[in-house]
């Protein structure tokens, strides 16, 4: 497995998080998170289950409100935006859910059209079809156009989920456990797709995962979320070149067991 070659040039920060706190009742999930993502950079967030990785990207996309701290996305403070401005910002953010979250009452075509026809005005039928077919082709599933989500495999659902987010040509992609529950071959396909999205759309991304293979292949930078904070950040090698018992255990579990 090849570690990802570092991009030499990276643009200004597109996401800037400072002093972020989030609790659910008595449970403190995020306890002072700081993170910066540059234009065109993929950052992998690693951490144990329940460590708040998904909460972090839900806050970035405005699905959850932070208790304290600043979350700046593309120059906008997310938690201060009204409904209209938040919707405008979300047009620039793609969110790929762990469960794929395909609309199961709609076929693949309707799933992909859904955000496009409701957010981009003045598109004709021909342009919509063309955009759907182009995007499906990019994820290698053009032949699934008229199938229902229930007829697709787990890997296909993930790819269709990513394709749906690509319909609006996002500047930032948020992937929640993109390879969870998939076989190794499909994981490689998804990893390649994440890298292709980064190159083709020059999109920045946050990849939430437990899977170190995915982290190594897709991340320009890796950030380790432990006890509600980023304890280590850097390249894959830098993060795992440590004597910290928790991080070592994480590495050993993935690559030895």
């Amino acid at each position, binding site marked *: 497995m090849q570690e990802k070659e570092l991009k030499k040039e990276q643009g200004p920060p597109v996401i800037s998080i400072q002093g972020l706190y989030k609790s659910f009742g008595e449970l403190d999930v995020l306890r002072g998170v700081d993170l910066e993502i540059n234009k065109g950079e993929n950052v992998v967030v690693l951490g144990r289950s329940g460590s708040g990785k998904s909460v972090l990207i839900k806050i970035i996309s405005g699905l959850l409100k932070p208790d304290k701290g600043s979350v700046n996305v593309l120059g906008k403070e997310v938690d201060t935006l009204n409904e209209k401005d938040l919707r405008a910002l979300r047009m620039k953010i793609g969110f790929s859910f762990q469960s794929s979250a395909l609309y199961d009452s709609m076929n693949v075509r309707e799933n992909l059209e859904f*955000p496009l026809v409701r957010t981009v005005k003045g598109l004709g039928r021909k342009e919509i079809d063309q955009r759907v077919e182009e995007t499906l082709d990019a994820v290698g599933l053009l032949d699934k156009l008229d199938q229902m989500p229930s007829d697709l495999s787990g890997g296909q659902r993930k790819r269709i989920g990513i394709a749906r987010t690509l319909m*609006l040509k996002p500047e930032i992609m948020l992937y929640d456990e993109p390879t969870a529950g998939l076989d190794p071959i499909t994981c490689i396909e998804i990893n390649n797709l994440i890298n292709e999205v980064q190159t083709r759309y020059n999109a920045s991304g946050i990849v939430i995962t437990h899977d170190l293979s995915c982290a190594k292949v897709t991340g320009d930078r890796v950030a380790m979320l432990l006890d509600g904070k980023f304890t280590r950040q850097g390249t894959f090698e830098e993060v795992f070149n440590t004597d910290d018992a928790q991080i070592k255990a994480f590495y050993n579990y993935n690559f030895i067991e």
Partner: protein
Amino acid sequence: MLSKGLDDYFIGVYNAYKFIARFFRQAFQGPFEFREIVRQCYEVGYKSLPLITLTGFVIGMVFTKQSRPSLIAFGATSWLPSLIAIATIRALAPLVTGLITSGKVGSHIGAEIGSMKVTEQIDAMEVSATNPFRFLVVTRVIATTFMIPVLAMYCGFVGMMGSFLNIYQNEKTSFSTFIAEAFKQITFLDIGASLIKATAFGFTIGIVGTYKGYHATQGTQGVGKAANAAVVLSMFLIFVEELVIVQVSNWFRN
């Protein structure tokens, strides 16, 4: 314990109020989801027809059959058509339609939106810069509000036909006499009050189903709870509305 229960109750009432206010804000401002409204009208209206037909017909027929012995005692079987018309148009048609559809449509809406909620489909709509409330809630509430009165009128018609068949069989009354007798006692107020009742029931079924589904939690168990709560609460509210509207229409009648 009591304090927490009261807190939860008032928070629930406030959330329901906010949900209804959001519906009215979004129902009257574009863009409108016309295609989805038509699809929902088809789901709510057309797909309920077999059940409403059967129920309406049986109720009309059985009610006629059960009322006859009392009227025979007074030699007043000729009153049967007007008695059945009053009972059906004023009370049975909207109430039965409301109860049947709260079971069939309300539970379906609660379960469908609930499962979308727990499988993150609503979040997916939200983050893709679309408005899930307008697509899922507004369309369904509009569909139930418009379709339940139509179904109630249809139920009334079918009930009257069931009644006619029984009367024809026993008293040999002709269709034109039956209709003339039936509508002798029916006023515009009866039909108007019935339509208002059915519209209120339709709105209730839609708003309760979508509210329960939209706030579903705890995975598949939450979906079941949402569907169940949608039926129980909308049935309870339908009975309350029935009582209130009957009182109000009686004031007008007197």
